[in-house]
């Protein structure tokens, strides 16, 4: 049951990605609609997958690297779909977000153990659900902002044949997803601090993961302020979004594998 749901989500994302790529060259609205429907289907399948896993484990499925990567792969398409609900999303972005989700799911299934393991004492808390979920939603939003920033830089090259509308759309998506992600990273840091205070009696201990999440939040805070600065035109802003996502990757993966700290169990 679990593997069928996982595979269904993976196949739906792959098909959505392929259709979005075709849509880049064939301007048909039906392709757009089908790609969005497939992304939604994949998202629903992955939601059910996580729900079943939650029921089987008797706890939120957010406690090890496999579960966390799957959650990351779940947030990216949903943030992308949320964007589509509020404004039109270009097919290049749909293809890029679907590709990223596919890569995450393939990595999780190929290299990480999907075994359901019992929680260690420190993780047995309801704060785990709020903390990990809010952090991963912010990572998903920042991933979409990163893709939008890269696409923005590509289309804003002088040699690019894309029209100004696409350029503005990518810039809008970049700014909105950063705002959305910033709210969730603030929630993630706050819930993590409250949890740490309940578990260990200290809400902040300059642990590498804490410090890097603060670095990430500060970089995106700079992004939100830079927009109103003279001389910080779109291209520079896009580079800040890219820098922010590099910081997300260090926070999410780099710290777990390269540094010792309170989050060492998250590998």
């Amino acid at each position: 049951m679990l593997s069928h749901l996982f595979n269904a989500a993976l196949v739906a994302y792959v098909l959505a990605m392929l259709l979005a790529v075709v849509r880049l060259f064939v301007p048909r609205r039906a392709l757009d609609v089908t790609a969005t429907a497939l992304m939604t289907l994949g998202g629903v399948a992955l939601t059910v997958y996580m729900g079943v896993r939650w029921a089987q484990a008797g706890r939120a499925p957010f406690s090890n690297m496999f579960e966390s990567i799957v959650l990351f792969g779940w947030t990216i398409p949903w943030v992308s779909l949320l964007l589509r609900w509020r404004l039109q999303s270009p097919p290049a972005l749909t293809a890029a977000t679907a590709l990223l989700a596919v890569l995450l799911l393939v990595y999780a299934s190929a290299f990480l153990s999907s075994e359901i393991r019992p929680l260690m004492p420190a993780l047995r808390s309801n704060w785990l659900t709020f903390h990990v979920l809010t952090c991963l939603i912010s990572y998903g939003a920042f991933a979409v902002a990163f893709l939008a920033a890269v696409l923005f830089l590509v289309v804003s090259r002088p040699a690019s044949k894309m029209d100004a509308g696409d350029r503005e759309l990518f810039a809008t998506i970049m700014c909105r997803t950063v705002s959305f992600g910033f709210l969730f990273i603030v929630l993630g840091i706050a819930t993590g601090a409250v949890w740490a205070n309940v578990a260990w009696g200290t809400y902040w201990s300059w642990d590498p993961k804490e410090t890097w999440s603060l670095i990430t939040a500060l970089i995106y805070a700079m992004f939100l302020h830079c927009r109103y600065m003279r001389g910080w035109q779109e291209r520079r802003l896009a580079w800040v979004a890219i820098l922010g996502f590099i910081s997300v990757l260090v926070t999410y993966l780099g710290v777990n594998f390269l540094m010792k700290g309170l989050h060492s169990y998250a590998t």
Partner: protein
Amino acid sequence: MSENIEAKPAVPAEQPAPPAPPPSKGVLGVLSSMRFALWLLGAIVVACIVATLVPQGAEVTEHLQHNPNAAPWLKRLAAAGLTNVFSSWWFIAMLTLLAASLLACMARRSKILFNSAGLPKAERMNLVGTLLAHAGLLLTLVGGAIRIFFADHGMIQFREGEQVDCFITEENQRLPLPFVLQLVKFEVERYPAAHGDKQNDIEVQSEALLVQWPGAAEAAELPVTIGAPQQFAPVSNQTYQVTVLRRVTDFVVDTATREVRNRSEAMVNPAILVRVSAATNVVAERWLFARFPDFDMNAMAGQEPQPLPFKMNYQVMVRAPVQTPIKAFRSTLRVVKADRVVREQAIEVNAPLSVEGYTFFQSGYNEQDLAWTSLRVVRDPSVPTVYTGFILLCVGAFLTACWRMRAGAVAE
């Protein structure tokens, strides 16, 4: 701040820029300028990155133990104040400047908010959100300062039945508690074993009595059967009878009475009492220990050791216990004040005990001594301020995110 803000936003399709506050001059002008805030945030980011790459505080000694060659450059980094970034004067100065910058920015934005009657509702919401977010961050920084100056952190380590009326701080100071804390009980709870697994018990797979004649290449293996004599004929003209008289799994002896008893059914110290006879004469009677094959009870009691005609060993093969993961470890604590029990509560990780401003957190235990526990003690008056800061920060970020979504939708 106005000198740095463009009349037109950098990203035209998203939303209009927030209303430009009136320009300020002097120190207030610098502190409230966005350019200054951005440089400051950038400097804090760089300092934080350095602190995660360079060993900090106690990590330096540990790093030197593994990499003795790193001593020269670590010394240079320490001289530059980079091995204690978060407690260095310059880092604290940067956070203080950030607090001042937030305060100045809030003062200017408050002015705009009070004169914002003509502004659209969405933009007023953004102003309120920005103010709340800045106030939240400021309160969090203030909370951090309160923590540095007024919080106490320490440890208590004691065993079941013991009590304390003080704790040892991280600076190795002994601070009194306004009550007595007793450790009633400590327990470790493990997850139940999977179906078919015997949890956490050592299981005997096989046991045998090995007897070896001097000079023989191999030992003979006799079964361990209580009261049943076994024949052992190592040479043609001599036959011995080997009888296992008694078997215990957890051997203890009363040193006064020399009485042997079995303390538990667990395979802690398995031993057998063996009698060796030749014809009708008892040659020797001796306890053999699986874990201590050379131990002789008679020698321990100061008596003449009984020589055996051949070598004997008690061999026990056990299956390693299935140790399921630990689910929780908890200490049951009793708070006593003026000889009266005022509170009794079991604490574990994520479920501390708070009494009169002191909070006790389950910190550690000793697998070799499960009557011992270690607690972290915290008295931190900064927590309400920091939590209020978090709430304001989250509400502020929510309002500004909503404004951006709404403003974007309007622009479309």
